[in-house]
Structures are given as C-alpha cells and as structure tokens.
C-alpha cells in the first residue's frame, strides 16, 4: 500500500463495483437457480408433505438442518471477531478483510437463522416462539434453550447488521460521490447524508468503537448459547460443561476457514493483492493453528471426561464415536480440523494462497462433520438401546443444504458487486498512518 493516495484507494476498491462480466452473471444465475431449487422448490415440498420426506430416522430427531444451523452460526463468528475484537485490539492486519468478513457474518447468520425454521414440524407457526402479547395468552418458555437461542441469534444478527452498516456509511458516501443517476440516489439514501464533517467523523468513530465493544461479548455469547441447546440436554455426548468454549473455538475455527475460502479467490479475481496482503493470510493461518489446537484439546477432553465420569452411557457414546457407524466421519473430522491446520506451521504452506484455500476447505468440511458427529452421532446412540438407529441425510436434506451454500455464495457475490468489499475508510486511515510514519523520520 505504498504511495497510495486516497483517490487511488477509492478507485482501486470501487473497481469491483464496475459492471460485471459474463462469467459473473452466469455464476450468479446458476447460484440463483440453486437457491430457488433449495428454498422455493424443495422446502415448500417438505412443508407440504411433512418433515418425513427428509431423511429423519428417530431417535435422531435433529438432522442435517440443525447441523447446518450450527455450522452457519459458526461461520458467522469470525466476521465479528475480525471486525470487532481485532478492532479493539488494534490488529491492523484486519483492515483489508474486515468488511467482507462482516458481510460473511451477516449472510451466515441469516442463512443459519432460516434452518431452525426449516427444521420445524410446523414452520408456518414459527413465530410462536417470539415473546409478544398474543391471542394465545401464552408466553414462550424462557427455560427452554431454544428461546435463549432465538434471542441470542436475533441479537447477534441485529448487532452485526448495525455494526456493519455503521462502518459502511462513509463508504456509501464515497460511492455516492462517484456515481450518478438512480444509483447515486440509492447510495445517497444509505449514506444518511454523510458529508465528512469533523463532527460526523467524531460521532462515527465513537459509535464504531462502542458497537465494537458491544459486539465483542456477543461473539462469545451467541455460540455459547447455541452450544447450550446441546449441553442443557441430557443426551450422553452433549451433556457437558465444555460445550460453550468448545463451540466458540470451533466457530472461530470454521469462521476463519470460511474467510480464507472466500477471500483467496476474491483477492485473485478482483486483483486486490494491494489491499489483502499475504501477511493477512498468514496471520489468519496462525490463528487457525491456535484454534485447531484448542479444538483438538476439546476433543481429547471430551473423551477423557467420558472415561473419567465412569458413566456407561457416556463411555459407550464416545466409543461409538470412534468405532461406530459414524466413525469414518469422526476420523475425517479429526484430520480436517486438527491435523490439516498444523501444516500452517510450514511457512510455505501458509503463504501459498492455493494451499491456504485447500486447507481452508478441509477445515470447512471438518467443521461441518464435527457438528454432524456431535448432533447425529450422539443422538443415534442415546440411553435406550431398543430405540437406537442410524440416520443419514437424504436428497431433501442435501438439497436444502446445497441451497444454503448457493444462497451464501450468491449473497457474497452480490455483495462484492454492490458494496465496497474492503472498508475504504479504514484503508485510508492506514494510508494516513503510513504517510505520517514516513513523515516522522524525514521531519525536523
């Protein structure tokens, strides 16, 4: 970012907003078809016929949909982690990736929040879990972890959205100033009359800082609460106090991997090497190592606790995990989540975008499997042996899962074409700093 001027920053970044090429349009169209298939064809079919069209096999009452829910909530983690926590820690390497990471968060939370509804037996009355004065004269049960869950996810989504939007306001103004016609009006509307006065900058800075401080505990809380859906249940394999930190670590692990998965191609396609440096990737990779170790530790502790508890249910549940029906998934998961990130210890690996991308994909797969192993694997062998059964997702589960990935990528692709994918304001701050730094040695 040497020798960059503000206008160049604007120019370089806003290049992504230029009218898209054919490849982009085709991709978006195909993704759109995928979304239509998953959400407008298969889901209504499932609603119409009943959940039985999916692969559910009691005692596994929670299947792929909740695996997806936890997976996407996990993905939603790193955005806020990167933009809020790293902001508070003044980790400058976050600048180039914070905007897209946050966008990722918003989309992932949105997608995640659909899954519990898809998973409902009667989704058309999902709003019954919302506490509002109603003709049923019945409040939801605040003892239920699902209510915690609903509140946590909803709060997280709201806070992330506001945080993201606040950061976007000056950039909207920049875009507004560089476009005309209807687009100018739209961007103008969203820029809330930003004119870049000192007073505005002051308020902006303060509110961004406060929002960052507000979002930070949410990062921890939302996945802790999601983990309570499981930890507060009595099922062996779930009922464990380690779940909250374990899930948070897992979420960050998967979120970072997803950041890499999205940014490596983005950087390449839009030639954003100037803003997203290899150094940033390296830092993410190093964090990944750390997360892999935490997650690996959590796996080990789970097994230790199962053994140490002396409970026949816990022991058999975990034995089933390593040698039972789903054991292959467990071992793939261990490799993907714990072993694969360790390759980042090698400098060559963590500086090669291709390898970074590949390992990130592995971690994504591993984290999806982790949720599958925990949710499905534990339930398929719970207390009563007579009731045991092995679940496997069928085409309906896969279709909606596929649709959710399409929706995610679609939203992201639309995002990079509509909004500046890199926080221009923050980049410019960096530029100022560099200029200032330069000025110091050459000063009097």
């Amino acid at each position, binding site marked *: 970012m040497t020798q960059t001027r503000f206008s160049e920053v604007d120019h370089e970044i806003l290049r992504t907003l230029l009218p898209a090429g054919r490849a982009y349009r085709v991709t978006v169209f195909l993704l759109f078809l995928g979304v239509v298939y998953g959400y407008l064809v298969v889901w209504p079919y499932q609603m119409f016929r009943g959940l*039985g069209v999916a692969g559910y096999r009691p005692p596994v009452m929670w299947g792929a949909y909740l695996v997806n829910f936890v997976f996407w909530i996990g993905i939603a983690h790193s955005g806020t982690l990167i933009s809020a926590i790293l902001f508070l820690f003044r980790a400058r390497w976050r600048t180039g990736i914070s905007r897209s990471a946050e966008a990722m968060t918003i989309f992932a939370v949105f997608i995640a929040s659909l899954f519990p509804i898809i998973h409902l*037996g009667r989704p058309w009355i999902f709003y019954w879990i919302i506490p509002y004065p109603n003709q049923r004269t019945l409040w939801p049960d605040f003892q239920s972890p699902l209510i915690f869950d609903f509140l946590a996810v909803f709060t997280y989504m709201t806070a992330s959205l506001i945080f993201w939007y606040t950061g976007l306001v000056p950039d909207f103004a920049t875009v507004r100033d560089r476009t005309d016609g209807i687009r100018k009006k739209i961007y103008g509307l969203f820029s809330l009359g930003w004119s870049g006065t000192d007073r505005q900058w002051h308020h902006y800075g303060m509110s961004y800082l406060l929002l960052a401080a507000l979002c930070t505990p949410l990062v921890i809380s939302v996945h802790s609460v999601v983990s309570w859906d499981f930890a507060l249940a009595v099922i062996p394999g779930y009922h464990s106090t380690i779940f909250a930190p374990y899930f948070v670590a897992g979420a960050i692990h998967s979120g970072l991997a997803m950041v890499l998965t999205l940014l490596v191609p983005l950087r390449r396609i839009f030639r954003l090497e100037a803003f997203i440096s290899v150094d940033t990737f390296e830092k993410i990779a190093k964090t990944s190592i750390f997360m892999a170790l935490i997650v690996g530790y959590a796996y080990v502790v789970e097994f230790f606790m199962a053994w140490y508890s002396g409970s026949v249910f816990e022991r058999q549940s975990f034995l089933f995990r390593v040698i039972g029906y789903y054991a292959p998934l467990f071992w793939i998961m261990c490799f993907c989540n714990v072993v694969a990130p360790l390759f980042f210890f090698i400098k060559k690996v963590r500086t090669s975008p291709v390898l970074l991308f590949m390992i990130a994909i592995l971690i994504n797969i591993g984290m999806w499997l982790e949720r599958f192993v925990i949710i499905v694997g534990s339930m398929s062998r719970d207390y*009563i042996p007579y009731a045991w059964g092995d679940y496997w997702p069928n085409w309906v589960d896969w279709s909606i899962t596929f649709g959710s990935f399409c929706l995610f990528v679609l939203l992201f692709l639309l995002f990079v074409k509509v909004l500046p994918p890199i926080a221009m304001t923050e980049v410019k701050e960096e530029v100022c700093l560099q200029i200032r730094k330069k000025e110091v040695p050459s000063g009097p």
Partner: protein
Amino acid sequence: MDILTLSRRQFLKAAGVTGFTALLNGCSDTTRTLIPYLAAPEDIIPGKATWYATTCRECPAGCGMLAKNRDGRVVKVEGNPLHPVNTGRLCARGQASVQGVYNPDRYRRPFTRIPKSHKLVPTTWSEAEKTVLAALASILQHGRGQAVTFLTDLTTGSERAVIGRFLEAVGSDGHIMYEPLAYESLMRANKEIFGIEAIPDYRIDEADFLISFGADFLETWVSNVQFARRFARFREPGKNGKNPFLYIGPRLSVTAANADHWIAVPPDGVSVVALGLLHLLLDKNHAPALDGKDRDRLMHAVREFTPQFVEGRTGVKREALDTMAAAFMKARKPLVLAEGMGYQDPGALDTAKVAALLSSLVPGTSEVIDFSRVSSLSRAVRAEEMKRLVDRMHSGEVDLLFILRANPAFHLPLRWGFADAVKRVRLVVSFSSFEDETGQMAHLILPTHTFLESWGDFEPHAGVLGLLQPVTGPMFDTLPLGDMLLSFGRSLKGIGMFPERDFYEVLRRSWEASDKTNLPSPNTVQSTWQEALRRGGLWGPPDEPPAVRYRPSTSRAKQSFEPQPPAASSAPRDLSFFSYPTVQFLDGRSSNRPFLQELPDPITAITWGGWVEINPETAGRLAIKEGDLLRIRSESGSIQAPAHLYFGIARDTLAMPVGHGHSAFGRYATSEFGNPVYLATGGLDGAGGIKRTLSRVTVTRTGISSLPVRTDGSPYQHGREIARAVTFRQHVTMTGDAPEVVPPLAGGFSKERDFYPSHTHDVYRWSMVVDLDRCIGCGACVVACYAENNIAVVGKKDVLKGREMAWLHVQRYFEETEPRVRFLPMMCQHCDEAPCESVCPVFAPHHSREGINNQVYNRCIGTRYCSQNCPYKVRRFNWLTWTHDPPLQWQLNPDVTVRTKGVMEKCSFCIQRIVEAKMKARSENRLVRDGEFAPACAQTCPADALTFGNLKDPHSRVAQLAGQARAYQVLGDLNTKPGVIYLKRITQRII
C-alpha cells in the same frame, strides 16, 4: 357369579349393554351432517359410548368381548370381565378385530366371476341366489346331494346347526370344520392315553410344575389369553420360588422366553427328550399313579431312551435331564404340555403321548387336566380329512363347495393340489368377508357379516356358551350366513323345513331350548335372554375342579416309541426346517390387520412381512448375512424370505413364522415372502396332521438384500440395566428393603438434588407400576394402545426409518451371555422432573396437576427438542400426515384427537379415560376409586403386569407395589422421577 358381586366398572359396562333393536337400523349409511336425531335411538347418546357384550371369533379360543360403540360405530373392543375364558383381557389379535369390520379390503357386495376373463364383477343378491339355487337344483336332480360340501372354520351352536340343516335339506353330511391348528397329535395321544379324543382344559394355575414341549400356550396354543391368565397365577412367587417352568423346543419363543430354562433341541429332538425324561423318571421308579405292571410295560417301551442316547441325539446333558426329573419328582401336580401339531416337532404324536403319560405318572395331575371341559377345537377335522376332500374334488365328487372363513388355498400343502382340484368343482361359493387366496378360486363371492356385525353363539369349550350380537350395523352390502342359508333352504324345501324368518330367530329358538340352569336368575325366557346378552353368554362358575377325572390308561397306549430319524445334514447347505404360528397372525388369518402387521414380533421385533430365522453360527458357515434374501428349496417347492439371524433357534435349522406370504389377502397381508406350508411334502403324520417340519431343505442366497424391518435398535442392554432382574434368593433377602425409587411426588424433591421446587398434585398423582416379572411380552397392550389412541400405522417404509408411532413398545432385550429374554413395556414415564417439559419453547409438554405429562398438540410447533431430550425415547413425531385407508378411519376413537403432520405425540396415560372416570366420580360426589378404570394397555394385559392408579393415595395398589423392594425406575439416576415404576423380574434357576 352373582351379578351383585361385580365391580362397579364391570357393572356399568354391563349395564350399558342394553337392547338390540336400535342397532338394527343403526349406522349402515354414512351421514356427514351434525344434525341431531329427530327421533333419537334409545341407546345412542351422542358423545357417550355404549358397550355391547359379544364373543371374539378371531381364533377358536372364543374370548368374551365388550365392544365400545360410539354413535353407532364400533370403535374399540375389550375383554369381558365376566367371561370365564379371558376374564376381561384380550390378546393382540382380539384388540385388532375391529379392523376386520373396517378393513379396506372387505368385499362390499356380492360378486360373481366371469368364467373367461376370470374377473370379479358385482352382482345382486338375488342373481347370486339364483345361481346357487340352480346349481343345487341340478345337483338334487341328479341325486348327488353328497356332492355338496360345506367347508368352514370351527363353528359351533346355531351357525353349525343351520349349516347342518341346510346340508340335510340337500342330502349331504359334508360339513367340514377345518382349523389349520388342529392339534391332531394331541388329540390322538389323548385318545390313546386317556381314552378321549379331545383337547382338555389345562389348569395351568393349579399345577405346581410345568414342562412345555414346544407348546406356545402364551401365543397361540389352544386358548392363549386364558393360559396367559393362568400362567400369571401359576408363576406368582411363593415361599420357595416361583413354580418352575421348563420349555423344551427348537426355538426361543415368547413362551420359551418366559420359562426358567429354554432347553434348545433340534426339532427332531423334542420327542427324544420327552421320552428320555419318561425313561429317567420310570428308572427312578417315580410313578406313584401306575401299578407295577404298567410301569414295567412303559419302561420297556422307552428302554432305548437312556440319558446317553438323549445326549447323543439332542445334546441335552444328563445333568440337565436329572435336574428336570428331580424337579418333576418334587412336584405334586406336575403338568406337561405338548404342542401336538407337528409345527416344531416331527415326533408330535410321540411327544404328546409322552406328555400325557408324564402327566399321568403322578395322581395329582388329574386335577389339572380337565376333560369335562373339552375345547371345541376337538371337533375340528384332522388335516387328513382335508386331503380326502381335495382328493374327492380331484375325482369330481364335489359339485358344489361352500367355503366360510376357511382359506385352504393358503393353508394346505401345494402338493395336494387344491388349486387344481377346485377347478373340477362346478360351483365354488365363498362366504368370506375379505378377499383371500381361496376366494380367488371361487365362482361366487357372497360376503357375510364380520362377527362384530352378526348374531350368533359360540361355545369355546364345554360349559361356556358365548353369545354374539351385532355391535355395529352392517358396514356394507353383506348378509349373515344364516339368513342366506335359510333363504336357500326355503327355496329348495319350502318354509316347512325352514320356518325361521332370519338367523336371529334361529338363535333365539336354540336359546329357548338351551339349558339355563347356570344363569343367576332364570325367570322368563325373555329376561334370561336379555341378561345373558348383557353378560355375553351363559356359563357356570369359573374354574371349578374337574367334574370328571379321566384316569389315564397306559395299557391303551400303543406302546412303542421309535426315535425320529435324525435330520441327515450331509451337505453343508442342507438344513432342517420348521415353522411356527405367531402371536400376531395365528395361522395367517389375521394378517390383513394393519395394527398386527405393525406390531413388532415379540421376539424378533420384526414388522411387516415374513422372514426366516437362522442361527448366526450356521449363517456364518453359509456366509449369510441379516437381510439376505434366501431361496429355500424342499423337494416339493421353493419359497423366498429374507434371513434374520437369531441365536434362539437350534443350529442347522431354519424357522419361519406362519401367516406371511399371502398372495391375495388384501393390501396389508400381501407379501412375496413365503408361506412355509408351500414347502411341505404333503405327507401326513401318524395322527393325520400335515408333516410340517422338514428334515432337509437347501438354502441359497439370491443375492438380493431385503432387511427385515425391525424396531429394535439393539437387541442387548449393553450393561445399562434398563430392564432389571433379581434372583429369587435376592428377592427374598431384600424383602422389606426400601426400593430404589425417587417418588414422583413432593417427597421426591430435595435441595441437594433439585434446583426447581416440586410440582403440586392436588388429589391424584397418576402412576403406573409395571411388573416385569409378570410381563410375558405378548404385545396385547401395544395393539390396545393403538386402537384406543388413534395411533397411526405408518407402513413398512417408515418403520424401516424408525418412525413407527407406537406410544408403547414392549422392548425386548436378550442377555448377552445366555439365551434369556427380558421384556420391558416402555411408554411415556410421566416424569415429575421431565426433561421434555423444560426444553419446549412453547409449553407443548405440560405438567398437569395430576402428575401427567400432557402433550398439547395445538401448541406444538415441531422443534422435536422434547423427543431429543427424552431419555426414554417414547415421544413420537408425526413426520407425515399418516393416513387411514378408508374406511379404517371409522375406527377412530372420537375421544382422542387425530394428530396431523408436524406435531409430537406420546402416551397420555389414556387421559380421556381419566377424565371420564373423574366426571363420573364428580357426578357421584366422590373421588375416583382405585382400580375403577385403567388405561387401554393395563386393561387388556392378560398377565396383569400393568397396574394403574393414584400414587398419592398410600392405600392404592400402585402405591403398595411401588413400595416393594423390587421397585425401580428406569434411568432413575437421571433424576427424572418417572411416574412409571417398574418391578424387577425375578429369575430362578433350577438347572
């Protein structure tokens, strides 16, 4: 029994059973409006059930039944508590009988078959009658009255009389009553030993030692509900233990699972062990009832069967035989039962004879074998008569064949060629209510009413006359058989010979002529009739000592016993083969009941469709895996069935349930997987029964996999102590100890254990005690629950996905080290600290002030968190909108919501019955009395394993039982405080 000694509930039920006139115009046409009656029928009060007493005709046992009629339709049946056979209980088949009335595959009108295309077309009754009369006229013209044959199942009383009169009118005596389970060997043995060719009444409860040689009396044998009731009394723990019970047979059946020991022998070894035991007892000179000469003669006859020989042939060790003999010698009234049919025992006649001889060694046993109350089954013909009939048909000696409730095309060996023979009959008339295999060969289908729509009488055994009355109006355009025959007869011989207007009049006339001395108050004929109808029939006081004691005579017996030739298994793929009737389908006649198809087999837990059992060791040798579709070939045919690996059958043996493999018995019964009788060689055994065991079949894999649809996730407990047991000695030493029970009451909560305070229960805390020592695993409770609570039948595909909706499972766990079984009825535990309640976001599971864990369907949004969090996995989710094939929906209980897709459901402790009882109590200004009512499962349990009541009342039966030392709660460590309390099974070893 004096009517004044009835319990209140019994009285009220009986009092509900009023006249019959309103029934006759009851409910044949459906109306969709909710307009109230202009002139209300006297006994239909909208919203209130009327109960009618009748007699179950699902099998020849003839249990008494009370049928619940709501607004003109029968919706549920229960046992008649007054009836001496079943004293208020029914088996699974009885509970499912309503599905006969509403079966979608019933014939709804008469049909005739077009000769060329072989298609059935509807016809009118008058046309059909014309056809029959024309045939009859031509037969009579040629003087071939004997060419008219009437084939029925076992029928007695007025129906039999009418058939007899009709045949007499045409000059025939060809009424053949065929039962596939005809106990030929048993009867022949009784003839030889006791001098009477009959099936006596076995008073199991009076005996003190029981051996069963393959007689599955808890499932199908003779009168299973009656025997289950007696068996429960027989097994009540006494001072020195439970009365010992040994089962010797080739398969670990439900009955064997309830024995102290199952002694596994190959099919051809059953008679050998029986003879060996006789030899040993005679050897020990234990024959107090015999004189020396008889003993010597007998000893001579069994001299070959030394313990060494027995061990060599069957693998039963000398010590085992010795202990058996010792236990036998200790007993004052030992009873020995033999299957007597040849399903599982090629030497059935020998075994039956030895069983009779063993029973006659000790004088006390004559008290427990009651020949004064012989079963009417004794009147069914032997299979050889059927062979003779088929031969006669072959040779053109039968011109007109009437078939009523018999299905020879399904039950007879293919070799006999019934299908060919029937083509030589000029007119075949089927009176079957359902389409069946035999009906496919009939020229005319004249569907009769099902028994629940009919008048009639049935005598299950001497001294008991059960009455049948229509408990619902006729569903379809069907007629009672009697009416048809009277009409035929009148047309042939005029009104002089057949003066009765209809079959009801026949019944009344026969009633008027009958002996009514046993009725409590013989007043006028009309009032006795009313009273008998109300009570369900006419019978003497139950369980009197035998009026006549038949002295066995060993001299009558043809005393030579040859060991069965050993099953030669030279080639490795040669196996021996046997089949067995099942508790669900009996001989296959109940296979078209969806409840029974969905009921897991008590032992294998398989639903929907046939299977063949093979010992895992043999399977391993032949590289056969669970679900491999096998082709089983005998010298006379081959059938297919998927393999089920089961250690509970002898090695190198295949076992197959009877009742599957129907080719035309409606949508529920039809399956391609084999009917075992098609393998039979067609040979007859010494007693005139079909030889059903085969010493040599070959089996090959077809390469197709078709997993049997099992409901058990794992057959074992994995050390989890779900279904617990104690030895008898432990049971004795721990008597008086406090049980491991945290009561689901306020007293069960404590600061150390609980975060939340206790629930308040005002007056009642409904609770159930399940005595695992009494549970025989028969599955009657499961079907009762289905019928009472409108539980959906989901079908094979969804059971395979574990989606069966049964609120109550009888879980079956095998012990991992030895062939023993524990049954555990598992329903919602109605926990006081229920894991399901706290996780639901919308309060759909709700703890009532009476301790019941209610499920509020309307609130449920289907998160399934409750089920996920239920450690007992008793909650059932409506994955789809389950459908009831019309007209099965007419069976639905109007007191219970029908659930739709997307909501959770589970056992409600039959809350509708609780509410009903409470309303009645309130109207009488009192509390509900203990035992006043019971949920459907407890109501029907033949073994009294389930007890329901108010745990808050310390004097209630549940409170008493829950205080026993044997009491425990399943997964009690989770502090769920279940309201269902189990009593541990008591095991004992005598070998």
